[in-house]
């Protein structure tokens, strides 16, 4: 836009905020759409019911001390967030179901070198 329509600050503010809301609402709709078409969600649904009777959110676990100073808190946050979704340590593993046949597994473990060829 080489020539702005208005130089009134309040109009600029209004227009910009409107665009921000429109874009983020559109994004929200898209997230709902992804959830709606998600072919993997059925398995997770019953898991969600189960922990409902215990609505108290998990207490924050003692924070792990990370020697290199890299984001121990972030790890805790993620763990806590996962815990609140109804995942226990065992359930977390299930997030990335391993359903590969032998070949794909082989490919995966060979991946590092192979992929750079």
């Amino acid at each position, binding site marked *: 836009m080489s020539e702005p329509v208005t130089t009134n600050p309040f109009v600029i503010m209004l227009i910009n905020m409107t665009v921000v809301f429109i874009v983020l609402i559109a994004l929200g709709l898209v997230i709902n759409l992804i959830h709606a078409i998600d072919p993997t969600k059925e398995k997770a649904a019953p898991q969600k019911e189960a922990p409902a009777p215990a609505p108290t959110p998990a207490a924050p676990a003692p924070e792990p001390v990370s020697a290199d100073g890299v984001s121990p808190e972030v790890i805790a946050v993620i763990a806590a967030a996962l815990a609140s979704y109804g995942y226990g340590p065992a359930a977390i593993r299930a997030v990335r179901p391993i359903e590969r046949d032998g070949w794909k597994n082989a490919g995966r473990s060979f*991946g590092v070198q192979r992929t750079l060829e």
Partner: protein
Amino acid sequence: MEIINAFVISLQAVWADSGFSAFTMGNAIMILVGLVLLYLAIAKEYEPLLLGPIAFGCILANFPRTGFLEDPGLMLAIHYGIANEIFPPLIFLGIGAMTDFGPLIARPSTLLLGAAAQIGVFVSLVGAMMLGFTEKEAGAIGIIGGADGPTAIYLSIQMAPHLLGAIAVAAYSYMSLVPLIQPPVMKLLTTQKEREVVMEQMRTVTKFERICFPIVSAILISLLLPPIASLLGMLMLGNLFRESGVMDRLSDTAQNSLCNIVTIFLATGTGMTMSAESFLVPQTLLIIFLGLVAFIFGTAGGVIFGKIMCRATGWKVNPLIGSAGVSAVPMAARVSQVVGMKAKPGNYLLMHAMGPNVAGVIGTAVAAGTMLAMLK
């Protein structure tokens, strides 16, 4: 005799060519500014990874006769990377690889809080325009309220490069002050009852959703706002590295070695734009003031929208998570958590606040894109 003569003349020549002979009061003051920023970075731990090199770069920039910005060399190469917006998208690649968008995906309504908190950006823009800044300058100043360093630098380079130093310093300083700035605003705008709202657990987020999200949001936002396609694209590429589960090598590099290397260059180079002529002007004080205004209004915007959502959902949303919409990940979310805990011990808001918190990163990028589309 001749030797002594040559000796004296040579020493005089070295002195005449030294930085001292061209040293200005402006240089001295800027070096002091650099030292104060270093103090804040190291002793007060204000965003040390960024403010440290920025401060050192500011000191370096104020040595006379170094030729940093004229002669070929490392400093000119770094400056080239700054002037051409090469570094901020690479930082966003790393941030994307570090960010868990799960809480946002689980409760997309928190995107509204991330949008509402951008009001700080635009209040500050209005204030800047009324104080006499041009529209472009006002936009760059306003983005301080977004509490997103790389976005602020990206926008400033394009809209007001002469203000880059002041804007970056203000943005990173206030980000460190989030735990001081936000709680009073949050308490002022909420009732005890609101602060005590307990939120229910979020739903499970599948791997499918986690993988689709970065792809789809990159497409949607880049199409709507092409000026931030490289920023958003890299953020979401980094997040895809993280969530795909098959690109861990790239995710690790994006978060660590690449991100650290670029941080050194970005921060030092940003500091090196802080010349006396561009920084020691009355506008700098106004920028710092407007930055504070932006943070306060951003916090207020998030909290007030939180109150609306609280009512709209039948007291299922705690308005305190709205303040996290300014981003400053994960500081602002932790502030929500701490204020919530004070109102009602055991009310664990952290993971609920992470939704608006990461939404705020996207929201600020969108706000920057909007301003680039409208004002540039």
